[in-house]
């Protein structure tokens, strides 16, 4: 619904800027969805004076005026017959933006014109275009036009929630604002206007036998008919059209426009019939007849079913109650006598009728949300009065008001203590009563027949609910109103958020276990005690920090005498046990703690402590072992031995290889935790077979190592098969892991193209360098470079290998042509030839 700032100001004296008002509306539950300013044009029009006027030398009908705007004088060519020296006029300077053009300096018949003197039509004020707008003599020059006219407006498009049909009109909105702001409305719109000015003509012909009969009193709870005779139907005055423009309702004629205006003002629809087309001097509210045909105002003919509520005369249906009027009885230019309907129709039936016939009108929109019976009398008298004023005529008789069961005002009991408890706000009974009264609720005194001793329950306030608030039914509805007016921001909320847990590390640890599990690994758990001899068996150097072990004072024997500083020995023992039990494939990992005593060695204790903070909530702080030089670190270690894949009759079974252990990291794991830019370099770890162990590093940080264990080490553990291991510093990985959510990247719109290359290359070159070189040819288009075959031997010279590479290409902006692909591939081949002396196969 559209709300006009100016219109609101007519109803309530608000002292808020349009911006403040918009904010106020939204935070009182009337959500402003968009704001539109009108009349901006008038702000750029300047009031000026014509200080000189001469005839145009080349054109009879044009004059050349000198216009003074208070600061400067402008030469303007004007075609209006009424312009004269000394007039105060509306001057549009160069640059003014009219709805359809921006004003520029022009030459008219050889004379320059620096601006325009405007007519009312050009200003959007009216259709008047016979001459320029001449302002009163006393108007001050130099100001903008709107400061004098004051017609620029702000239109809010608001969303009215379905529980508040009372807000479907300007008065309802103003009423709610008055409660919000604690302001009185300019008049009491809840009382029928005095009808003293309504002249009554007691025409016998009209008055004697006209009546309204409601056959469905459940579905139509009130019907007021006012009959006005002798109206002249014509166009509405400008102010009325302006109002309808706000509502975006098309002006039709004065009578219809008045019904729409009053509807928009009060939120309650009305309808006017041409009295001469209502036969039998009778309005009947009844159910439709099955298969009855009804010609509606929308120029469609509807076939009714017998379930709709209709307004009828003695012969025919003249309106679908609350939905749409009939073509057979609507107001035309020839109409002289009218019947004005203000009624209340059942909301659910209105909804049913409207949706089954697919007729959606301003009227059905309101009736299906529920209208108050009380409002009928208010709108009926206001509309009548307006019609008499704008269309003439006379009221034929007193209004007919059929109102079988008077709507009683609801009374709701409110326990202030319950409101305070539920809302957790500190608010006095007095304040509560104040809010209720501002909403139009009346506090009434009811003494409970059996008072209890419970003081809290005895404090009950009773309120009489105004008719238009059909949404207020229970205590909780009043409590909602209290907080709505009091403001949600008054509910103090400062929850204690405990950030004890490092969820990133916690769930990554789990996730990593899942990655291993889904790649065929079983999780091992070994006890923390270890035997120092293992450190020798792993070839650890004298100054290796893993020899700085935490020693147990009272161990259960030498083999349990230290806290483990590496997970590897435990896993190798597990490997041996499983080999001895005939296991043909062993994939084990352990993610667990290792312990160090930093009495000596090369490790930097300070740094270690920082690191550990990444996943422990507290570390050597707060407690008494502040100066402890012990550290506990998480390690991720694993072993792979025997067959890689399970036996499968369609496939060759392969033994675990170097690339299987490598794949766990550069494939699944590091991608999972968002670690990029890893370099792989030969390791200094002493337990790998020479040339077979590698470290993964990022910048200077060593994340861990992987590779094939030294046969001599394995011998010491009694293992006589190849074992591949990995051993990672989990804390370090967590330190550099990226826990941010990934951001969506545009999916390529154009097809990906794949091309293969096979060539012979010297073994001295690494594939990584080859890939980098290829991508560098066109990083925007070359997506992936994946080797898919390699071989040596036969046909390949000694010291060379044959490589096959798959390259995927895609462009973000177009489908690649064969020509473009060919060019890129040629550049790749040339580049590879220059750099690696490849020989294409």
């Amino acid at each position: 619904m559209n709300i006009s700032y100016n219109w609101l100001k007519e109803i309530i004296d608000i002292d808020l800027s349009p911006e403040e008002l918009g904010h106020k509306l939204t935070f009182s539950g009337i959500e402003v969805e968009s704001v539109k300013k009108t009349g901006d044009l008038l702000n750029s029009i300047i009031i000026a004076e014509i200080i000189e006027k001469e005839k145009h030398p080349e054109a009879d009908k044009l004059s050349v005026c000198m216009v003074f705007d208070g600061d400067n004088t402008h030469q303007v060519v004007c075609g209006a017959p009424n312009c004269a020296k000394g007039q105060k006029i509306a001057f549009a300077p160069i640059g003014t933006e009219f709805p359809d053009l921006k004003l520029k300096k022009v030459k008219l018949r050889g004379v320059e014109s620096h601006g325009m003197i405007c007519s009312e039509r050009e200003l959007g004020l009216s259709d008047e275009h016979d001459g320029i707008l001449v302002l009163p003599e006393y108007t001050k020059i130099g100001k903008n036009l709107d400061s004098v006219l004051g017609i620029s407006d702000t239109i809010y498009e608001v969303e009215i929630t379905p529980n508040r049909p009372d807000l479907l009109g300007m008065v309802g909105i103003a009423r709610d604002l008055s409660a919000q702001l604690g302001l009185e409305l300019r008049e009491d719109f809840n009382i029928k206007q005095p009808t003293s000015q309504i002249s009554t003509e007691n025409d016998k012909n009209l008055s004697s036998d006209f009546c309204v009969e409601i056959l469905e009193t459940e579905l139509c709870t009130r019907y007021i008919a006012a009959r006005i005779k002798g109206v002249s139907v014509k166009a509405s005055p400008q102010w009325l059209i302006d109002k309808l423009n706000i509502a975006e309702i098309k002006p039709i004629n004065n009578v219809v426009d008045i019904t729409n205006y009053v509807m928009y003002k009060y939120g309650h629809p009305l309808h006017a019939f041409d009295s001469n087309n209502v036969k039998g001097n009778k309005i009947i509210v009844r159910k439709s007849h099955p298969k009855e045909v009804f010609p509606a105002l929308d120029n469609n003919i509807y076939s009714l079913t017998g379930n709709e509520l209709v307004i009828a005369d003695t012969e025919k249906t003249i309106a679908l109650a609350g939905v749409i009027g009939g073509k057979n009885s609507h107001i035309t230019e020839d109409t002289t006598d009218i019947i004005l309907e203000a009624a209340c129709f059942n909301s659910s039936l209105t909804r049913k009728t409207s949706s089954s016939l697919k007729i959606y009108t301003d009227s059905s929109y309101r009736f299906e949300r529920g209208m108050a019976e009380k409002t009928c009398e208010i709108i009926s008298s206001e509309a009548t009065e307006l019609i008499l004023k704008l269309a003439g005529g006379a009221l034929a008789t007193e209004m007919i008001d059929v109102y079988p069961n008077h709507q009683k005002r609801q009374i709701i009991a409110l326990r202030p203590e319950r409101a305070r408890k539920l809302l957790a706000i500190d608010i006095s009974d007095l304040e509560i009563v104040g809010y209720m009264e501002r909403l139009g609720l009346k506090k009434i005194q009811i003494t409970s027949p059996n008072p209890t001793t419970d003081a809290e329950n005895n404090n009950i306030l009773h309120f009489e609910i105004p008719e238009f608030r059909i949404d207020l039914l229970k205590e909780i509805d009043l409590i909602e109103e209290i907080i709505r007016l009091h403001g949600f921001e008054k509910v103090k909320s400062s929850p204690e958020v405990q950030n004890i847990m490092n969820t990133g590390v916690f769930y990554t640890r789990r996730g990593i276990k899942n990655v291993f599990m889904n790649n065929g690994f079983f999780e091992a758990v070994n006890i923390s005690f270890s035997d120092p001899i293992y450190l020798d068996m792993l070839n650890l150097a004298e100054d290796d920090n893993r020899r700085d072990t935490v020693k147990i004072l009272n161990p259960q024997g030498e083999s349990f005498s230290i806290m483990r500083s590496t997970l590897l020995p435990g896993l190798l023992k597990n490997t041996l046990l499983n080999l001895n039990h005939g296991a043909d494939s062993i994939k084990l990992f352990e993610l667990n703690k290792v312990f160090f005593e930093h009495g000596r060695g090369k490790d930097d204790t300070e740094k270690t402590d920082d690191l550990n903070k990444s996943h422990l909530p507290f570390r050597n702080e707060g407690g008494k072992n502040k100066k402890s030089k012990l550290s506990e670190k998480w390690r991720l270690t694993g072993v792979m031995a025997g067959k890689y894949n399970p036996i499968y009759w369609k496939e060759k079974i392969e033994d675990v290889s170097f690339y299987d252990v490598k794949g766990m990291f550069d494939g699944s794991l590091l991608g999972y935790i968002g670690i990029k830019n890893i370099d792989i370099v030969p390791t200094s770890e002493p337990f790998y077979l020479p040339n077979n162990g590698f470290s993964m590093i990022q910048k200077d940080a060593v994340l861990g190592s992987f590779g094939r264990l030294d046969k001599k080490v394995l011998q010491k553990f009694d293992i006589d098969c190849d074992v591949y291991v990995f051993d990672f510093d989990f804390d370090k990985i967590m330190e550099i892991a990226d826990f941010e959510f990934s951001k969506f990247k545009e999916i390529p719109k154009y097809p990906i193209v794949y091309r293969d290359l096979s060539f012979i290359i010297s073994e001295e070159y690494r594939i990584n360098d080859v890939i980098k070189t290829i991508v560098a040819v066109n990083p925007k288009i070359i997506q992936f470079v994946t080797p898919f075959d390699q071989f040596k031997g036969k046909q390949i010279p000694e010291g060379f290998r044959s490589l096959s590479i798959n390259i995927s290409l895609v462009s973000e902006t177009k489908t690649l042509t064969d020509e473009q692909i060919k060019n890129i591939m040629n550049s790749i081949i040339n580049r590879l030839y220059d750099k690696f002396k490849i020989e294409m196969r």
Partner: protein
Amino acid sequence: MKDKFQEIIKKATIDIENVQSFHELNNLKSRFTGKKSEIKDFMKYLSSMTPEERPAFGKMVNDTLEEIGKLLEEAEQRLQENDYEKTIKSSQFDYTMPGRPVLRGGKHPLTLVQEQIEDVMISMGFQVAEGFDIEDDYHNFDALNTPKDHPSRNLADTFYVVKNHDEDLLLRTHTSPAQIRVMEKYKPPIKIISPGRAYRNDKFDPTHSPVFHQCEGLVVDEGISFKDLRDTIDILLKKMFGKGCKSRFRPHFFPFTEPSAEVDVSCFNCAGKGCSTCKNSGWIELFGAGMVHPNVFDMVGIDSEKYTGFAFGCGIDRIAMLKFHIPDIRMLFENDIRFLQQFTFSR
């Protein structure tokens, strides 16, 4: 002329009926209806005909083409049907041969149980905080209101670390020191669990291990009551062992809680009827619990008048053994794949 058309149709009918492949069919199609077909050739007569004759002739050409078209279509359908039948017949295979195996690993049963406890507790708003394995005796004993001469401090019960520093360090005998560390660092409200390792100087046997796993729970806030403790433990038990699971609290002693209780859970193996798992009692002892002792609050500087709290602890190894019917605790630390592969899922 009409006869000629009839003859073509006849010839086409025979040829098309005998067609055996899509290739042959295509050939026939162009032979009978293509640009160089006999019928199309007839069109040359059109020019020598009178305007009156032309329509009838044109209709004959069209009818013939249509007739042949129909035959071709039927033949195509027949071939497709044959093809389909052939596919079905030829795809006889031994569906009992194994499908492609999926790589299958698994988490350790201790992890499965720990994750289940964590998930239940996190769903109740708890946070997970871990402590140290190597503790000082202040956090392991003093701060937990354990007297200096308490027997649990003996070398026969507690592992101590070789003293290289000023402090007495030990391997924590329970996960409770984590409570102290959390309370030292964070203000109430506190709602945490702390799973981890604990160490006691027991020899390995089927039910004992010098290294085992516990999960500690701690809640500190205003108005925390014994009922909250019961509710929390009951929810955890029901989520772990099923809705029908009951608990009973027996008075007990722990230095750091008062009142203290041991919690028995109705045997989830026999539903309380009595079996070997519960040693015919119908109940299994599973938790130690109680309200945080005011002395403990005093040690960490939490106002014991304003705040109350509860704490509980349980053995993860014990729950895993009961849940998975594992007869010997040592199996948990051998990492025999034949053992590990039995516990891929927990629920």
